């Protein structure tokens, strides 16, 4: 395809290699600008909507009369609306933006046909809106993570197919000879998710499997969405931004490959641990438990890789918001995954299964790991798309501390409360009355709401900064909080 020379090619041959590489990157960034912005703006709007649903459901759990007469907001629907807005609205939109931005940069390829991604984005967001609306009016499937009614899902599928096809095109026309580990993760995730999604939809909604096979399909899907879609996208981002911001290579290429393959082969069996003790064949449960244990391998390998890269550079946390969020996310990934493995231990599962402990674990993974990594990525990407700096360093600081402290309190409250609840549930002699156990957990549920308010404050700080950034003029460059110091000394051109 004959095209106009790129900026890099039109530079004076005497220009330094770094400058050529910089020019190339900024050209690639510019090509992703419009669709990436579209996905990011959508994601932030969904984040706010999801936060509102989260607060409402959390309040309802200790104050059932709160909005008690409004059927559309009854707990079973508000909670479900929360899950679907934060997963399919916030997380997937952010993941799309980060994934294709990274893919373009790593493939050294300008984005072709960006309009395709606009169509995908429109379909996706209309699909999520219809789905959440459907849940609130009572059309939920009540299948965890697949609640959206059947009339919303084809839209989502079309949108996904477009994004996936686009990623392959970008990769195919890429100039880079080397496949960086982030690309492995992103490509795999883009392939795994539609498979999971379409099979689960077909077997549960259009042609339902009978009996408890439904539950197996459900957890095969729901747990793999975490492990084979969000986890690889999150890890892909960590693998890119950590070395990028620090200006040094990842600790070990070998370990990153090992981490990738062990994740791919062990994670996808682990979902059955949600059915431990339940009415499904014992051998599948055992396989799920074994796979959960094997997950220690990719987690430890990835942890060594991330944390060894970080060693000696902790000082940089002071300067880079991206790094702060990414490191918080990477550490959370390690801890929450090890916690996940431990939850498959039979005697421990007996206590924690069916309790708030599981909810705490889910938020540790999906929020403290994935969402924090996405925040960090957005702090890096947005200035490069808009060619201007974040307007307020104070708001970034507020965002970080409010969400970090908030989620730690959240997880601590539900973990302690969940263990207490689980021990009581199994101790019929001392806790024969169920309502006493409910009463016991209330204080933890209130603590969770308070943590939720703190997290909300962080999200508002983020959204204000984000909107301000979109609308501010390009001239004010004084504070430069994205890096807090001269970028030249920190960034290397890959």
């Amino acid at each position: 395809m004959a095209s106009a020379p790129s900026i890099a090619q039109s530079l004076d041959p005497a220009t330094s290699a770094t400058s050529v590489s910089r020019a190339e990157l900024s050209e690639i960034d510019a090509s992703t600008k419009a669709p990436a912005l579209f996905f990011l703006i959508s994601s932030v709007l969904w984040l706010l909507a999801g936060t509102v649903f989260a607060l409402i459901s959390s309040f309802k759990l200790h104050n059932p009369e709160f909005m008690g007469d409004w059927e559309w907001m009854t707990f079973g629907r508000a909670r479900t609306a929360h899950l679907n807005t934060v997963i399919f609205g916030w997380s997937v939109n952010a993941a799309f933006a980060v994934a294709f931005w990274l893919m373009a940069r790593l493939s050294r390829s300008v984005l072709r046909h960006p309009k395709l991604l606009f169509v995908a984005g429109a379909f996706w967001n209309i699909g999520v809106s219809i789905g959440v609306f459907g849940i609130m009016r009572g059309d939920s499937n009540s299948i965890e993570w697949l609640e959206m009614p059947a009339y919303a899902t084809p839209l989502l599928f079309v949108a996904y197919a477009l994004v996936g096809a686009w990623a392959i095109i970008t990769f195919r026309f890429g100039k880079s000879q080397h496949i960086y580990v982030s690309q492995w993760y992103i490509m795999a995730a883009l392939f795994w998710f539609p498979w999971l999604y379409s099979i689960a939809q077909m077997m549960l909604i259009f042609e339902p499997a009978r009996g408890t096979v439904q539950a197996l399909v459900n957890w095969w899907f729901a747990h793999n969405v975490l492990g084979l879609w969000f986890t690889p996208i999150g890890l892909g981002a960590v693998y890119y931004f950590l070395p990028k911001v620090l200006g040094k290579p990842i600790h070990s290429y070998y370990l990153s490959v090992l981490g990738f393959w062990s994740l791919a082969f062990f994670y996808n069996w682990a979902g059955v641990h949600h059915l431990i003790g339940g009415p499904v064949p014992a051998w599948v449960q055992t396989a799920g438990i074994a796979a959960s244990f094997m997950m220690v391998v990719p987690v430890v390998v990835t942890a060594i890789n991330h944390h060894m890269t970080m060693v000696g550079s902790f000082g940089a946390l002071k300067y880079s918001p991206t790094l702060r969020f990414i490191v918080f996310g990477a550490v959370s990934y390690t801890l929450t995954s090890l916690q996940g493995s431990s939850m498959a231990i039979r005697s421990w599962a007996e206590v924690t299964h069916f309790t708030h402990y599981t909810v705490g674990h889910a938020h540790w993974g999906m929020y403290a790991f994935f969402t924090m990594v996405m925040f960090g990525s957005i702090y890096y990407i947005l200035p490069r798309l808009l060619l201007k700096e974040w307007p307020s360093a104070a708001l970034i600081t507020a965002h970080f501390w409010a969400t970090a402290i908030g989620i730690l309190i959240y997880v601590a409250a539900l973990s302690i409360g969940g263990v207490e609840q689980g021990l009581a549930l199994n101790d019929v002699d001392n806790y024969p009355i169920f309502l006493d156990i409910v009463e016991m957990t209330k204080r933890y549920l209130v603590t969770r709401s308070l943590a939720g308010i703190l997290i909300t404050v962080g999200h508002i700080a983020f959204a204000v900064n984000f909107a301000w950034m979109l609308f501010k003029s390009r001239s004010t460059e004084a504070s430069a909080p994205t890096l807090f110091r001269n970028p030249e000394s920190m960034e290397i051109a890959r």
Partner: protein
Amino acid sequence: MNRAPLIFLGVFLALAFSWTGIVLVNQIAYGSLTPIYDENESKAFPEPMPGIVKRGELVYQDLGCVYCHTQQVRRPGYGSDIERGWGERGSVARDYIYENRVMLGTMRTGPDLRNIGARQSDETWHLLHLYDPQLTSRGSVMPPYRFLFEMRKIVGEPSPDAISIPTTYTDGVAVPAHSIPAEGYEVVPTARAKALVAYLIQRKDTYGFPEAFKLHHEKAEEEDAADSEEEGN
């Protein structure tokens, strides 16, 4: 770049492996379980769900009850579901074959409901509990489902379906005025409320399938083995 096909193959195999193992094999193995005919009782178990129960299942589904209530009694040795009186035996796959949506649940903010019909078969209790859970279970965190009821003006004869709402909770605290029908009004459950209650009352797995018996038997053998070991020491 040229390693891309190899990576893709690995990525494909990874998921194909779990899909085959978790989904396909089990679908083939027990995806079409059939009821068991009992000659002594001359009917088949589990019993099919009547129309109103099916409608109740849909109400249960659209209100998202599954997020606070499980519907599975864990087998002996996993928690103390049976000791808590949540069922006579562990749930088995065959119990669920007539259900459109298998709502096993993963959370016990509220109690397990697999056998709620065996524990509480009183329709009025369920209606009151749905109208305002505090009436029957003071301190519960369950939301009220007053929107499943109509506050209707009595025209002519009072409705036989109407439920009478107590004026105080069990601990003596007054029920809020907006929950109590004014003079000349009555609280009548809608068709959805009745269907949901019918569904709840039908929740009981009392029939002992051979496979359920086997689960308990295995457990008993394990315990015996453990006991004799202790004696040996």
